[in-house]
């Protein structure tokens, strides 16, 4: 079916009574008038369709449902800090690795002496990364979750051994920054 009126014209005519050019065309063009009447019927069918009203109890309880759902959501767009478990797990694991790195670096040797001037190594050797701090991070986790993120023994030592001294120093600085960022 060929329509001489553009879709914009039909839509505008649906919103209000057709007038001017559109009205004149509809009186003279059978094709457009048929199209217009069909669109009008569709529009009226849409407008006549209603949404079933839920139970009044639904409206009474919906606000508390939303309140519950937003409980762990910080209104600045991120998660509330106590709900940011993934960060805590990652930092906790990293902190344990730092302890392992710190233990390895405390062993006397020329390499560790050469790096003693870097802030990161000094912080570790001064015991800033406290084991109690790490334990606190894990204390909030359920036992099964904490186990899943506990260092896997020899795998962690292998990871630490693979780092160069410079890489270990950089890694310690990164972890210290993460720990400082915690509230």
């Amino acid at each position, binding site marked *: 079916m060929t329509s001489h009126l553009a879709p914009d014209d039909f839509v505008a005519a*649906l919103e209000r009574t057709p007038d001017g050019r559109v009205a004149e065309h509809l009186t003279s063009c059978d094709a457009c008038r048929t199209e217009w009447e069909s*669109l009008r019927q569709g529009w009226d069918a*849409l407008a006549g*369709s209603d949404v079933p*009203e839920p139970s009044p109890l639904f409206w009474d309880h*919906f606000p508390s449902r939303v*309140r519950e759902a937003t409980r762990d959501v910080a*209104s600045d767009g991120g998660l509330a800090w106590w709900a940011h478990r993934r960060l805590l797990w990652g930092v906790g694991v990293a902190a344990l690795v730092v302890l392992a790195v710190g233990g390895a670096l405390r062993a006397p040797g020329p390499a560790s002496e050469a790096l003693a001037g870097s802030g990161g190594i000094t912080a570790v050797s001064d015991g800033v990364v406290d084991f109690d701090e790490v334990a606190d991070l894990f204390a909030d986790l359920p036992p099964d979750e904490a186990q899943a993120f506990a260092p896997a023994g020899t795998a962690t030592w292998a990871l630490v051994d693979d780092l160069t001294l410079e890489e270990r120093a950089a890694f310690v600085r990164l972890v210290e920054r993460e720990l400082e960022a915690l509230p």
Partner: protein
Amino acid sequence: MRSDLQAMPFGGWVPARSELVSGRAPGAASPVDDLRDADDHALVEAFRGGRREAFDVIVERHQRTVYRLCFRFTGNHEDAADLAQDVFVRAYRGLPQFKGTSALGTWLHRVGVNTALNRNALRRAPTTTLEGTDHGDHRQPDPVERLDTERRSALVRRAILQLPPKQRATVILRVYHDLPYDEIARTLGTTVGAAKANIFHALGKLKRLLGS
């Protein structure tokens, strides 16, 4: 008349249902009493100022509009309720960044449409039944006429669900929420001309879906 009490036919007063639901003692002051008469702008400012209960009032004020929008997208009560909850959670996250250049209700429409368009529920088959879950006021006294109206409404709702997402969103926002085309275009990230074309093509498709 006190809003926390309702009169009994035989005389006397009992707590209003809202009071029973809230668990407050009748007559006890609510932490949101001073916010209920505030306009949307004041509620947003109160929320930004740290009053979490201001968002509760926003939910109570806009929950019906958001729910109806969500129902149009999902076609059933359970999905509509879940989607409406998601809309308000998104609104809770985004409200601190709300600039106030549009009305709060319009902004919630935008959040609702974007949430609905992103949600997997749109790709599920429509699950409306011809028997509605209507608990509301039935204004048509003739039960046959009412049943016929409900069946036609259900058919139309089912047909809407079969429209492509942007055509569906345009129809819902224009026909049921009376948003102007420029606002629809902003919400969908398109042009006014494209929004009008969506309506045109949606009506053509609905004609085929619904038959003569």
